[in-house]
């Protein structure tokens, strides 16, 4: 029997309610620090590491924006563990990316109380700042989004979120449920012994399960799946060949920013910026001789295909690549399509479970016989 705790709040006091919850946790020593989205003094909402509970006033977890995928931040905090217990409030794509990074020894969740949040999508950073300036609050967005409409003020949530089949996070200790919980209430669901201990220590007792939640989640996931299949089909039909791919990434300038934003592209320095791709002059001349002309910078398609071969097995579809591209190339469908195929081939799913071994790190003697199609 899942154990939920109801956190009812009056209109406009959602953030305050959550702030009190976390304040309680920190004061009672359940956790020493909290990483959660906070409203920044200048503008916008960013993940912030809070160790003094008095600053929790600016908490705004349900703000519909994820400027940087939290997995990267969590990995940098925990790769060399501080030893201090930290609660982290992250969305599903951030948590799934974090699971992959743990497998790659880039993060360590031993001292982390992972709190997942239902996610109904995020706006691009600039759109969010504009909407927030026009006074749209997180609760307003939540209400409208739960009713099925994420469009407001001429802006809409990112394409990746529209087709994300994982609105509800897994592999978490506690879960902040907002879908199917009725107005003026969010629920805190505990899923692991660590979560139970935290709830107890924070003096919260478990209540009944929100009635319509299960159905609401199923329905949302179904809608998102259909949207996803449609989007990927549309992408595959529009970009069936390298030629079409060239067209799609025509204005890519090899700035590799999509790699920097991608949570699962965990290399310190991408191979495309190492010596391997700092070619000699005569090589450029050689390529130019081939057809008389040579588009510079080179290795654009080579970069995108290689990045696919490197990270498509870990891609969680968070859409940060599209958001990060200075020339607004919609990269997300490209990587999600590749990920669907490569992860499908090994029926692996990025972020599904900590013990599921990554496909290219395990090898059996008599598997995949169809690849060579040879019988002795």
């Amino acid at each position, binding site marked *: 029997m899942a154990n939920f705790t109801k956190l009812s709040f009056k209109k406009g006091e959602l953030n305050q309610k959550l702030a009190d919850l976390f304040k309680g946790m920190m004061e009672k020593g359940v956790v020493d620090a909290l990483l959660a989205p906070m409203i920044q003094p200048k503008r916008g909402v960013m993940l912030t590491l809070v160790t003094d509970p008095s600053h929790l006033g600016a908490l705004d977890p349900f703000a519909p924006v994820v400027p940087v995928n939290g997995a990267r931040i969590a990995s940098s905090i925990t790769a060399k563990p501080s030893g201090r217990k930290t609660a982290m409030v992250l969305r599903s794509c951030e948590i799934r990316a974090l699971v992959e990074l743990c497998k790659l020894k880039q993060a360590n969740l031993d001292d982390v109380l992972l709190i997942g949040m239902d996610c109904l999508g995020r706006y691009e950073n600039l759109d969010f700042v504009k909407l927030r300036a026009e006074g749209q609050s997180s609760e307003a967005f939540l209400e409208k989004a739960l009713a099925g409409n994420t469009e407001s003020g001429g802006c809409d949530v990112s394409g990746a979120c529209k087709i994300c089949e994982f609105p509800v996070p897994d592999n978490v200790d506690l879960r902040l449920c907002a879908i199917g919980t009725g107005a003026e209430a969010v629920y805190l669901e505990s899923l692991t012994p660590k979560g139970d201990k935290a709830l107890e220590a924070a003096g919260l007792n478990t209540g009944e399960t929100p009635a319509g939640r299960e159905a609401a989640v199923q329905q949302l996931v179904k809608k998102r799946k259909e949207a996803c299949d449609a989007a990927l089909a549309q992408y595959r039909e529009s970009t069936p060949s390298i*030629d079409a791919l060239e067209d799609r990434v025509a204005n890519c300038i090899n700035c590799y920013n999509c790699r920097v934003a991608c949570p699962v592209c965990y290399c310190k320095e991408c191979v495309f910026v190492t010596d391997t791709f700092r070619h000699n002059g005569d090589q450029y001349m050689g390529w130019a001789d081939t057809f008389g002309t040579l588009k510079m910078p080179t290795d654009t398609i*080579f970069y995108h295909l290689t990045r696919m071969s490197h990270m498509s097995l870990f891609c969680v579809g968070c859409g940060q690549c599209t958001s990060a591209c200075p020339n607004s190339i919609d990269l997300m469908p490209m990587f999600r399509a590749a990920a669907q195929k490569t992860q499908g*081939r090994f029926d692996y799913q990025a972020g599904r479970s900590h013990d599921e071994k990554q496909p290219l790190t395990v090898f059996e003697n008599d598997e*995949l016989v169809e690849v060579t199609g040879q019988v002795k």
Partner: protein
Amino acid sequence: MSEFEPKIVGFFCNWCTFTAADLAGTSRLSYPHNIKIIRMMCSGMVDPKYVIKAFLNGADGVLIGGCWPGDCHYINGNLKARRRVAMLTEILKEYGIDEKRFWLRWIAASEGTMLREVVNDMTAKLKELGPSPLNREALGEKSEKAKMIG
């Protein structure tokens, strides 16, 4: 225009397949010349980048030759190659590079005839398929597309 001759890049493992190539080459059962053989220490050493580069440079087909499972000098390099090929085939298929252009075959040291058959078979299949969409040379010098794929 001379009949289309597919260009194949062959990554041959130094221990088994390269020996079969020597056997095929020297024992006069020579295979067609459109295969460019690159000697790797093991099929497990073939990085997906090399296959992508070969296709972007206009190769019509890529053949990786490895040892039969169990024969590998480095214990299990061939098994690792098989998984990488399975992953890469999915990506290349997404962009019109047909599965029939990218082969992994186990060819033991004594199987000179098998190597010749594999190369001849692949050449025939590629002739059916026609030049790779990236083989700009086959499209002729003047077409606007005839530029190096960056």
